[in-house]
Every structure is written in C-alpha cells, then in structure tokens.
C-alpha cells in the first residue's frame, strides 16, 4: 500500500546534485511536534550548525520541559533535560565543569521568561560562555496554551479568556531587550523561522554564536526566535505564520539588538 511519491517524477536525478538533505546529526525519528511548529525547524537548525562546525563531539545541549522536552530524541549529541526554568543553571553547571565544551540551552518563553527569570538574568549577568536559544511563541505550548509573560495584549489564551489585559496580567515582557543591555551578553539577536529567508538568517546567527564560543569568546550569545504555536493559537500553520508577520513582529521587532564583539584573538 505504501505510496512513495506523487506528482512530478525525475529520471535524471543522477545528473543532479543533492543540494539539501536532512543533516546526519538530526536523527530520523519522527518529530512529535504539531504540524507546522517552529520548534521542528529550530531543532534542526541548531543541529545543522553543530554539524557544519564539526563540533558534534564537543557540544552539549540542554533542553528543559516545554514542547521541546524531547529534543534529545532528535539531536544526535549529548544532552541534558533540565527542570522547568532551570536550563541556564544546568548549562552553567556543565560549562563551568567542562569549559572547553560547546554548550547551548534551548528554552521556551514560559521557561526562560517566567519561572526561569532569575536563572536567565543571572546566567547572563555572570556572562557565562554559552549560547542561549529562546523560542518565544508567546504561550505555554506544552501545557495546553496558557498565557505566558510574552503573550501580547488582547491575546486570548486558556488562562486569559478575555484576552491579555495590562491591568490584570501585566505587560508582554521583553526579556531580550533586558538581556541586551546587560554587560554579560556578547551577542543578542531576534530572529524567526517563518520563511526560508528567516531560516537562513537564524542559522547564520547560530553559526556566528557557536563560532564565537569555539574561539573562546566571553559572554552569553542570545538568540530569540519569535515562533509560532499553531495548536496553542488555534490557527493553521499558515495562518500562524501570517499572524507572526502581521501582528507579532510589530511588537517584537526582528534583527540584531547587540552586535557580536570582534574577538581580539580570532576574527569570526
């Protein structure tokens, strides 16, 4: 019964170059993420970057609970699963013990900007030499779509049934801006993965950050990726990406917020 292809067929594949394929460091396991979820893309991008830089053997990833809790099923490297909110503390423990390894954390907005706020701020304040990936989908995806600190005004979630209201729930927390102004951050950027071009830019930011860490650069590299949650937002994947472009990016503007300092030893 197994259908293998539909549509255009090509007999000349051997005359063509394979110019894109799933990276080896990204396992064959079927991703558990919902259809169209940005997590999948970001999971892959960090593995692509690790592989291109040839650091699979020295990279340790940390993912806490959140939709990406199973990231270690897909990332073919050593990984630690952290308690909710504590990924950056766990990453600190690893990096301090093994300073020549490359360490990254992978955290959601509930994780990094709510329960883990203290760990986030202090990891940055200490200037730990790690990469922090911040997947901001403005919602608690894992637990079924509750309001998060980054949820925008008016958004209806399962715990803000009448929409987020500044008086009751407070303001969308711009943790990335806070991090950018702290001396412990080396590089702070806000990216997305809602289009192929955005994907390219995000990967570039990851490559830059990892290289910086490989070269012994000091301080946290921080990449926020403003992403979607089709299930939590109750939208189709396509709608969710449009919503990102039409609403969310107006509030969370994309682009570099703090430029990577040039390393004296080694220009990246």
């Amino acid at each position: 019964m197994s259908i293998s292809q539909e549509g255009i067929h090509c007999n000349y594949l051997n005359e063509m170059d394979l110019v894109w394929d799933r990276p080896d460091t990204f396992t064959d396991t079927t991703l558990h993420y919902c259809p169209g979820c940005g997590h999948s893309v970001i999971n892959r991008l960090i593995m692509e970057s690790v592989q291109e830089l040839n650091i699979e053997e020295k990279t340790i990833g940390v993912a806490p609970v959140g939709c990406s809790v199973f990231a270690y099923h897909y990332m073919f490297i050593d990984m630690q699963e952290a308690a909710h909110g504590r990924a950056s503390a766990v990453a600190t423990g690893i990096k301090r013990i093994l300073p020549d390894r490359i360490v990254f954390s992978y955290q959601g907005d509930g994780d990094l900007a709510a329960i883990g706020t203290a760990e986030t701020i202090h990891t940055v304040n200490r200037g730990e030499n790690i990469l922090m990936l911040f997947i901001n989908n403005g919602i608690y995806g894992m637990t079924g779509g509750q309001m998060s600190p980054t949820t925008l005004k008016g958004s209806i979630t399962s715990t803000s049934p009448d929409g987020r209201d500044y008086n009751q729930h407070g303001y969308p927390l711009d943790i990335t801006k806070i991090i950018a102004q702290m001396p412990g951050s080396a590089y702070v950027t806000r990216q997305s993965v809602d289009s192929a071009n955005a994907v390219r830019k995000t990967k570039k930011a990851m490559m830059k950050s990892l290289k910086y860490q490989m070269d012994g650069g000091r301080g946290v590299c921080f990449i926020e990726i403003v992403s979607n949650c089709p299930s939590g937002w109750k939208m189709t994947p396509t709608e969710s990406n449009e919503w990102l472009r039409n609403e969310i990016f107006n509030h969370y503007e994309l682009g570099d917020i703090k430029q990577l300092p040039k390393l004296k030893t080694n220009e990246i």
Partner: protein
Amino acid sequence: MTKSSGHIIINIQKCKGCELCIIECPQNGMALSSNINQNGYHYAYLAEDICTGCTNCALICPEAIIKVYRKKKSKILKQPVSTL
C-alpha cells in the same frame, strides 16, 4: 520526467501536511495531495515541473523531509550543505 533545473523528493509518509513548503515555493510548484499518508495527513508533493532547486521548501519544512536536487553541476559538497 523533469525538464526543469531542480527537483525535490519528499518523504511523504512523514509529511504532516502543514503546507508551509507550498506557500514558500517561489515557483508555486507544490500542492497538497487529496490522499492521506499512513498517519492520516494529506501530504505535499511537487505538482509542476518548475522546480529550480532553490531549497526554500526544504528550509521551511518542519519535518526536514524534503531532499533538494539541482541540475547545474557544482563541486561535490559535504553533507549537509551550508545554507549560509
């Protein structure tokens, strides 16, 4: 039998039918099948022979299940190819 300069192969059993690749294809060459795969998802496929091998669909595909081929011979690249 393709005449265009590029081609893609989708692992359709793993497709979740999110349609992001379809939106992202600059050639508008892709479409969603009315059939479903073993997981019950309608899957994407290359519907028109106009692929340029630009990799957009592969880059956006959450499931990382699109292989992209391009005709013009380039030097052999190690996998995976940098998208920088």
